[in-house]
């Protein structure tokens, strides 16, 4: 599903990766562990097409991510949630859903309920707590039923009980709908409880 072949990347004169290889098979749940600043987010952003590798190639769903192209059928959560604070959570998601036109209001509302934002549908995002924004980001990633989920620190700002709920939700998505999941975290517990394969970013960089 995701394949990185000899990927090298430097950012602001810092060499992040040299000849990095990684394969995430379809239907897998794969976790990448690493400290802050180790390059996990940049790795995910390269998979999404937001950052460009200096060398090597990235394939998502068998398609090479060419310069300027974004992968299709993908749900993403990155380090910052770009929602409009003056709009309600529901309106934010409906606005995003209108771009592809693949999903309707009913599915959007259903996804908000799924992540525990049932009573916040009509509340403005500006009034959301950090944890609620993260939940909205999860709903945003799930709402178009993607076959690949790329999640950067998905449990950030989420309490322990809710994190367990989301781990269960991701596992269900993987088992029932065969959604491939690639996530990063700096907490080994998150990754070990959820993922079938775990990689340490330091070892990946070293080619081990």
């Amino acid at each position: 599903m995701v394949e990185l072949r000899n990927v090298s990347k430097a950012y602001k004169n810092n060499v992040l990766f040299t000849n990095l290889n990684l394969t995430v098979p379809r239907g897998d749940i794969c976790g990448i562990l690493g400290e802050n600043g180790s390059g996990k987010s940049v790795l995910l952003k390269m998979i999404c097409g937001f950052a460009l590798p200096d060398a090597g190639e990235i394939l998502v769903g068998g398609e090479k991510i060419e310069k300027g192209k974004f992968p299709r059928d993908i749900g993403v959560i990155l380090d910052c949630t770009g929602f409009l604070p003056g709009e309600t959570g529901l309106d934010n998601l409906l606005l995003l859903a209108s771009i592809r036109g693949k999903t309707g209001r009913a599915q959007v509302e259903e996804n908000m309920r799924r992540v525990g934002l049932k009573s916040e549908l009509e509340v403005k995002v500006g009034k959301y707590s950090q944890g609620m924004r993260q939940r909205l980001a999860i709903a945003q990633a799930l709402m178009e039923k993607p076959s690949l989920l790329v999640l950067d620190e998905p449990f950030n700002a989420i309490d322990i009980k809710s994190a367990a709920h989301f781990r269960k939700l991701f596992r269900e998505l993987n088992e029932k709908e065969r959604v491939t999941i690639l996530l990063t975290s700096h907490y080994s517990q998150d990754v070990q409880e959820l993922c079938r394969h775990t990689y340490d970013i330091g070892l990946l960089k070293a080619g081990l």
Partner: protein
Amino acid sequence: MPAKLRVEIRECRLVRGLVFWLLCALVVSYAMAVSFLKKYPAGCQGEFMVWVCNNYHVILVLFPLLLLAAASSAQSQNSRYPVLIRYRNRNEFFSVKIAARTGFVMLCLLALVAMLLFFRRGMPVETRHAFMVSEDFTGIFVRQCLNIFCFWSALLLLHEILQSILNDTMLDLAITTLVPLGNYILAKGVAVRALEWTPWGKISYKIEEILGAPPEEVEKLGQYQFYWWYWLAVILLLLFLAKELHGKKEFVFERTTEL
């Protein structure tokens, strides 16, 4: 495409920007009408419209600053990843962004014109040549509006280029505003002659000449032109650069600045 344009307009709060702009245009148009009548009590409606276009410190410095502030995305491009990932590629995102902003610039100009038309109502229609000899008011005004539209569009593209290089909205805004400000200072200062040959310089330079000249010399007004060849070259060059840089932009870490 309409859905994407709608998202871009909402995401970048262009409607809010337009309201903000209208308020500024209302105040400035009123102040200009008062100022014009004070200098030229016998001035007519047509002369007022041309005179406003000639106030380059407002048209070429103040308004671009307000326009850029209003058109700058409230969020960094990096934090707009939920939108970005729903596009097929960067080019599509870039095209929608530029189309939305160009439309916004056009609406802003039309809003300013509407305000001026509103405030000129109390002035006489017949000219007594208080400010200028030529009576081709409409022709001059339309040509100046086209120049101003191109000037503002060029600044928006410059803003886009700097955003790709600097990744900092506020710094980008400050540098972009320095361009018309520099143009204004040079046009006001000793370097007038150095700027005279450029349309940017001509827009501002001619005005200085007109305001300071007796009416009989103002026949030079015929030199007012729409410099389409110049603007076409400048805008195509800036568009090419902006698109190339956007294609190479790293949406990795970006300073987020709420405007």
